């Protein structure tokens, strides 16, 4: 049940592959840095207006079940999420740190890039040892706007069945 078949896509043209890979690396670094430092407005800037962002337990993903821990189907919903995390949620202070690795292009066309990357997130709180929040992968659809790649869709599909207590900010 854990095996997950993936279609093997033909590689993107060799000339641009390294470039694209490096561009995705920069984008993911910016993504992680914005979230780790709670620069949420900069994080929002990495998405197009008409976007989809979901944090999905892997069991739902594999079973084709639609419920997500976080489900935002517009940039407005992303903004509401950020506002809640910043202002209205009663939560213990914590520092998160994202580790994004193994970036891989699934398919690249002129219209869209599909890519994935592993992610590990750890958090540090008062009176507790640093702990793993989740381990999983991102599944992305990106489009180019004004020369930069932006997320049209980012799914964070996490393997860790149990979230330790809560997930306050977007990941």
């Amino acid at each position: 049940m854990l095996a997950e078949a993936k279609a093997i896509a033909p590689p993107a043209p060799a000339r641009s592959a390294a470039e694209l890979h490096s561009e995705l690396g920069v984008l993911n670094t910016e993504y992680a840095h914005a979230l780790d430092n709670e620069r949420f407005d900069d994080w929002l800037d990495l998405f197009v207006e008409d976007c989809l962002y979901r944090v999905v337990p892997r069991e739902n993903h594999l079973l084709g079940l639609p419920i997500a821990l976080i489900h935002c189907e517009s940039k407005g919903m992303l903004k509401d999420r950020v506002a809640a995390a910043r202002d209205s949620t009663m939560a213990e202070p914590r520092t998160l740190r994202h580790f994004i690795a193994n970036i891989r292009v699934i398919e690249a066309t002129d219209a869209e890039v599909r890519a994935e990357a592993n992610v590990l997130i750890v958090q540090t709180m008062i009176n507790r040892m640093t702990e793993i929040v989740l381990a999983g992968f991102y599944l992305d659809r990106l489009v180019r706007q004004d020369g930069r790649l932006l997320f049209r869709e980012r799914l964070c599909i996490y393997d860790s069945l149990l979230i330790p207590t809560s997930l306050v900010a977007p990941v």
Partner: protein
Amino acid sequence: MDALTRLQERTWPAEGPARVPFWAYSDPEVYQREQDRIFGGPNWSYVALEAEIPNPFDFVRATVGEKPIVVTRDANGSVNAFANHCAHRGVVFCRHARGNARSFMCPYHQWTYDPTGMLIGMPFRRGHKGKGGMDPGFKLQEHGAQALKVAVRNGAIFASFDHAAPPFEEYLGPAMLGYYDRVFDGRELELLGYMRQRIPCNWKFMFENIKDPYHATVLHVFLITFGLFRLDQKSAVEMDETGRHAVLISRRGEQSLNETTRDMTNFRANLKLNDPRLIEALPEFPGDMTVVMQTIYPNVIVQQQSNTLAMRQLVTRGPQAFDLNWTFFGYKGDTPDLRQRRIRQANLMGPAGLVSVDDSEVIALSQEGAAVYPETSSILEMGGRSTADTDHMVTEAGVRGFYKHYIENMGFDHAG
């Protein structure tokens, strides 16, 4: 009697259910007694939805208290539940979360069980070349996986290790059964997905949280601001006659500054959603109640808040931790629009829920304090000391009702 003596003797404070001694949230002996008398006693624990095992030979792993079980649908379509615990060497023999299987073979010595938990075979039972093997008097049918009593009502499955559990309908009582049937009305359910979290906190803090409307109307910015559950709305707390099951009921209100909301620190008159679809609900149940949260003793909360429906199941993990497993569902035949609203509104719930995070965070803090101040007691006097139903939410009657029953179920003595 001083506090230390009460702690040493585990004697409940004289105020009864208007006090909860904090040792009840951390004491390993209390926890073990709960496993024996509550989760192992003649009570019904929620284990799964029928929609998780729609076909013959489907199975899903589940938990009662802290004990792993398997819930199956057999060849005849009946639902069974048995301990996930090999009669031979104790192995948790069903290792997949769910699937479809005509038999379950223990990986250790390959003892094999059918979908009802009956032991149907083992290798070398008759020995080899006339040597060894089981005693000829050994009867397979006497050594199956421990069977649980099962109750199925309109799509949800409950189980009990104690076969003396009364019929499920009698266990809920007529009033609570009415609220149960409001959600489980006989329509076929559609499974929408899971969320799971581990909270470093005794299970009772969670169960009490949904019997306590007082916190909801002060803590949760989202509920208060958008009128999803608030003091100035027509509300009620109702219980069965024992006090162990309860419902919190309310009706949606407006985001308006009035005499009540002015006093609420967490009311935000200016908070506007960029995308209000997040909380836009369709009325779908008869009557004007928009939220009915039902606690069914001892391990599940049936959640109906706007269009989000979920079972919140508690799995105990020692005295100071529990898992909260959320199973979201809708109905077969929901319009795509209603289904999408359920998915959107689920943003309020679960480990990342815009409302629920407040709860998981705050009950973990309760535990942090409870664990190290076991000699002190929690004060539960909002709304007096009564355990009667109320038509408002400024009360802890539902929590007292729970403890009235808990003290009895656990056999605690009161201090004189």
